[in-house]
């Protein structure tokens, strides 16, 4: 995936990183190493501890214990770390009354970019996210997707070495989401930017990320490439619909079949490669005179992987999300 030398360069090293809010452990002794140039995903349900982890890495929160380095600098050296990272927060952080350009201008100044460099870079990042002709409008006239794109552009303004994206497509419609995926991919593949994103959308992690850490209750419960994760699920599932599922179960004796589960009207067969297994299975069935009504191939998704590790779906917890936001806002105000 990445070339030889880069393989050894770590952009981020996380050691036993822990964050407690009172007695509650939001992030529980996480260990992780992220390579330079990697597009890395933290995948997990609401409240898993993704934002907390990212906020600690971006120097917005102090770890309770453990530590992390970003480009070999301890995150406790806040200003040095801040200079080299770009951060797109989960919640909007633009000034609504200013224009897009003014928001970027402010950012450039805060990162001490010289005037010419600033002007050029503003043009560049606006173009990158396709907002050139919106630059002079106030943010309050932007759509959700446009705001998100501008925030990504802003995160890139000062040429960070690492970009953090906290739920980059949260609440956006599918088409806008697709567009943002393209920008993220472009940044990673064309500009070689190291990107760490969090998401609770399986498809997003699957589509974008080189590697994924699945996080639940503050712990990393799986860490691998999306492909490998899906492979450990044992491959494709063929759902074969037939009235004679019992007889079919008996005659299917291929050694490449990993698993079979019989139901009244259908038989589930797990195989490494569903596409090439279908013809063999159909042939065997017709030779035995078993009538097959339909065959569905189900590719395992990260959702299945999540269920495999936690025994529940990621979305089961979504209903809690509004309460979560409320409690977080209260917490924020208390400090």
């Amino acid at each position, binding site marked *: 995936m990445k070339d030889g030398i880069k393989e050894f360069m770590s952009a981020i090293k996380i050691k036993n990183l822990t964050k407690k809010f009172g007695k509650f452990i939001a992030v529980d002794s996480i260990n992780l190493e992220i390579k330079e140039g990697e597009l890395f995903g933290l995948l997990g349900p609401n409240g898993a501890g993704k934002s907390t982890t990212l906020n600690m890495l*971006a*120097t917005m929160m102090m770890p309770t214990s453990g530590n992390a380095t970003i480009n070999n600098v301890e995150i406790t050296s806040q*200003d040095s770390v*801040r200079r080299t990272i770009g951060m797109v*927060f989960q919640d*909007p952080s633009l000034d609504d009354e*200013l224009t897009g350009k003014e928001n970027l201008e402010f950012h450039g100044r*805060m990162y001490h970019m010289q005037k010419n460099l600033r002007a050029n870079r503003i043009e560049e990042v606006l173009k990158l996210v396709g907002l050139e002709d919106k630059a002079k409008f106030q943010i309050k006239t932007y759509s959700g997707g446009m705001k998100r794109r501008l925030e990504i552009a802003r995160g890139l303004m000062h040429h960070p070495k690492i970009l953090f994206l906290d739920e980059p497509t949260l609440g956006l419609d599918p088409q806008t989401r697709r567009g943002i995926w393209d920008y993220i991919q472009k940044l990673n593949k064309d500009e070689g930017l190291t990107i760490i994103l969090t998401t609770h959308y399986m498809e997003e992690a699957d589509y974008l990320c080189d590697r994924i850490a699945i996080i639940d209750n503050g712990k990393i419960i799986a860490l691998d490439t999306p492909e490998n994760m899906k492979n450990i699920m044992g491959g494709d599932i063929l759902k074969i619909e037939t009235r004679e599922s019992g007889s079919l179960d008996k005659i299917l004796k291929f050694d490449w079949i990993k698993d079979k589960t019989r139901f009244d009207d259908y038989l589930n067969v797990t195989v490494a490669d569903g596409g090439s297994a279908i013809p063999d299975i159909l042939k065997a069935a017709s030779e035995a005179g078993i009538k097959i009504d339909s065959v569905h191939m189900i590719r395992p998704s990260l959702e299945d992987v999540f269920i495999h590790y936690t025994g529940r779906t990621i979305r089961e917890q979504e209903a809690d999300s509004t309460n979560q936001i409320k409690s977080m806002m209260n917490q924020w105000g208390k400090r």
Partner: protein
Amino acid sequence: MGQEIMFQDIYTIWLREMLKFVRARSRIASSLAMPFIWLFILGFGFSSSITIPGLPYIGFLAPGIIGMIILFTSIFSGISIIYDRQFGFLKEILVAPVSRSSIVIGKTFGGATIATINGLIVLGISSALGFIDFGIGTLLAIPFMILIAISFVAMGLIIASRMKNMEGFQMIMSFLVMPIFLLSGALFPLKDVPDAMKVISYFDPLSYGIDGIRGSLVGITNVGIITDFTVLLGISVGMISFGTVMFKKSTQS
């Protein structure tokens, strides 16, 4: 961190406040009606009941109203950092490689500039209407206006660091801002008030500001404008320092 960088950061924060101020001109223009309502109604209403030796009451009152508009604008400016927190922009500021004291100083200077401009408008119109004389005293009043503004923006920031949202704003107005205003000697001379009230007014930062402005503009003062200036300078520096501590505390987790 280099001084030059710090200066640049303060300027950046200040600049944003200015940009937002210019954008909200109309809102601010309407807020300027209030001091003139006070000035005209109280000024003419009390003109016969309150007598100031050698000065019509409205000339005595005008410096107080200048102090009032600066007080109100400053406190609100400081507290309105709550909006930055609610709308998330504060995070954008906090994640940047910028020292927390630069942020507090930039915010304070931004709010203070706006408040001072408001004070200058009231000062200008009062002079134009002949309530107060225009002259060297006018220039002398400006440092006092700036120092009041700085002190109270910083006080607003301190209050905001302990406030969740704007819900508590009315409370702050009733139990902090109004007493500060009424006890400052803005509306009546503090010479003849009961001793207890006089003592309290010594702890009111605004009383030194009003006394300094009035001393500069119309030559009436309780403690002398040098004392006023020294005390106010101390209060401004103290408020900014305390504001920085409180801001750091409120943004750490």
